[in-house]
């Protein structure tokens, strides 16, 4: 597949296109290997330079890159024996959330993840990764299955948010999300959450309460999109740069705020530039977290999970240090 370049990647695009041109010329018999080598080196330097200094808004664009690997890519490359489970047994099957059972090496695990499309057709099918209540209720049902069979639950977050529509409200979007927070907080099995792309507010959190929160290097996680924030607080949709920076939505920001536990490094240029590599790295991260969590029994895990979220928040309390009083 041809790479889709973002605006800030234009200089890289030019160089990479030159390399492709030269490679094609090389096929006609000319010796261009030295020139190609030189250009490759230049491209590497440029990539490292650009990608080591991304602004939060640029990271947001990478997190939403149309070619960015999604839940189904990780399922296909990290797990085996995947069997998809459908429907909430109440209303419908929501394709914006994928759920099922699979093997992670020798272990059976349950998987829940948002799914976006990669083109117009698939985006319409998956509703751009924006679930309806039935999607969250399917997720809630599968969470309870994981608990019943004492298998770990792995969730993958990649959504602009829960869908804001008439049907979604009629069927209780707020209730559906709240119920999942409720269920996850008391679920008697290990939960590992990975933010793989876009973590859009309550629609992301609805599958995001876990014991370990991993986050891909170029993923974002926020209470509101930079566009929404700019429109409401700056009253200017163009202030997305400032909004993205102010919201502190990058993996590095969130690690500092102790909202996530670990950053999964991505290949230079983003996860989509080398899907095999990101899958290998993520698999290692998941396996490591899982073996750590499996040292504890389920009641310890639930208690630790409660304390993990219990201590989140920053405020001033006279005479008492809020870090201590839990």
């Amino acid at each position, binding site marked *: 597949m041809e790479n889709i370049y973002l605006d800030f990647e234009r200089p890289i695009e030019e160089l990479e296109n030159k390399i492709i041109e030269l490679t094609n010329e090389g096929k006609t018999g000319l010796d261009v290997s030295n020139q190609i080598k030189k250009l490759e080196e230049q491209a590497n330097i440029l990539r490292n330079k650009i990608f080591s200094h991304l602004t939060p808004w640029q990271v947001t664009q990478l997190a939403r890159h149309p070619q960015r690997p999604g839940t189904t890519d990780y399922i296909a490359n990290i797990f085996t024996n995947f069997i998809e489970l459908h429907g909430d047994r109440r209303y419908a099957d929501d394709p914006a959330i994928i759920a099922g059972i699979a093997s992670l090496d020798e272990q059976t695990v349950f998987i829940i993840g948002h799914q976006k499309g990669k083109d117009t057709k698939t985006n319409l099918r998956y509703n751009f990764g924006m679930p309806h209540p039935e999607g969250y209720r399917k997720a809630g049902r599968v969470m309870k299955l994981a608990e019943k069979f004492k298998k770990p639950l792995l969730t993958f977050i990649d959504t602009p948010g*829960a869908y804001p529509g008439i049907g979604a409200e009629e069927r209780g979007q707020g209730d559906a999300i*709240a119920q999942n927070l*409720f269920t996850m907080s008391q679920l008697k099995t290990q939960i590992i959450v990975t933010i793989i792309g876009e973590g859009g507010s309550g629609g992301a959190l609805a599958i995001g309460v876990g014991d370990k929160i991993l986050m891909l290097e170029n993923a974002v996680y926020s209470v*509101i999109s930079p566009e929404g924030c700019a429109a409401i607080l700056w009253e200017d949709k163009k202030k997305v740069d400032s909004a993205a920076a102010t919201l*502190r939505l990058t993996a590095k920001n969130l690690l500092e*705020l102790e909202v996530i536990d670990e950053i999964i490094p991505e290949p230079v240029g983003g996860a989509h530039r080398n899907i095999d590599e990101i899958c290998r790295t993520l698999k290692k991260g998941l396996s490591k977290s899982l073996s750590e969590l499996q040292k504890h029994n389920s009641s310890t895990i639930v208690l630790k999970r409660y304390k993990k979220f219990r201590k989140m928040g920053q405020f001033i*309390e006279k*005479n008492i240090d809020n870090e201590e009083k839990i």
Partner: protein
Amino acid sequence: MAWFRKPKYTTIPVTQRKSEIAEGLWVKCKDCGEMIYKKDWEDNLKVCPECNYHFRLSLQERITTVLDNDSLQEDDTDISPTDFLDFTDSKSYKERLKIAQDKTELNDAVITGTGTIDGHKIVLGILDFNFMGGSMGSVVGEKLTRAIEKAISAKLPLIIISSSGGARMQEGIMSLMQMAKTASAIARLDTSDTLFISVLTDPTTGGVTASFASLGDIIISETKALIGFAGPRVIEQTINQQLPKGFQRAEFMLEHGLIDMVVSRKELKNTLAQLLDLLD
């Protein structure tokens, strides 16, 4: 010393008197447009006698309409918000907090404590929409969580009266985490067999609807209150069409099976008392 005695009559400048008559004695209903005599309106708990529209109440008014007189004992009054993200949009978060604190004389958008309703002792939380839209940041999340934990340990019924636009954007991701925190606390309360009544008032949307407010054993909404997850404006922009009349109102929520009952302001205290009688 008659020279220094207070005069019997003071004069009021004419301009001020005029505006006071216009704005002071009559109130226009925001729903049906009816002009209501202010005293009648106040006696009617700020409900329009024509169309039953429930105006928003201040926190103090809410307390007096729900709790027994002087029964409130506030908890955690020393917790205040902090601008830990150094969040500045068109105004800084610090400024917005200052304005809200001056306006409401509260530290943040919630009060918690214990009180009685017809003699039943309860743990109570009330959100105040006048404080930055009742938005939930770290202080709201923390105080509510402490109230929930108190209800568990003291074995007292919990009532939370919500009015909130959702998560507080100025606290970024941390406000989102308050949803997980409060919902987790409610899940714990659930395992302790403690009663939780969630009262939704105008408006309750976003992260509050999508966390503790939707998790009541019993969910009550005040008449005509706007209740929903996404705000109506966001939905309109997304689907590009006008929303049907009554969409996301309490009666709509009842019709769609999402709440137990719609109760008018006058009946709220009695309904709560009756539930406490039956379940406490």
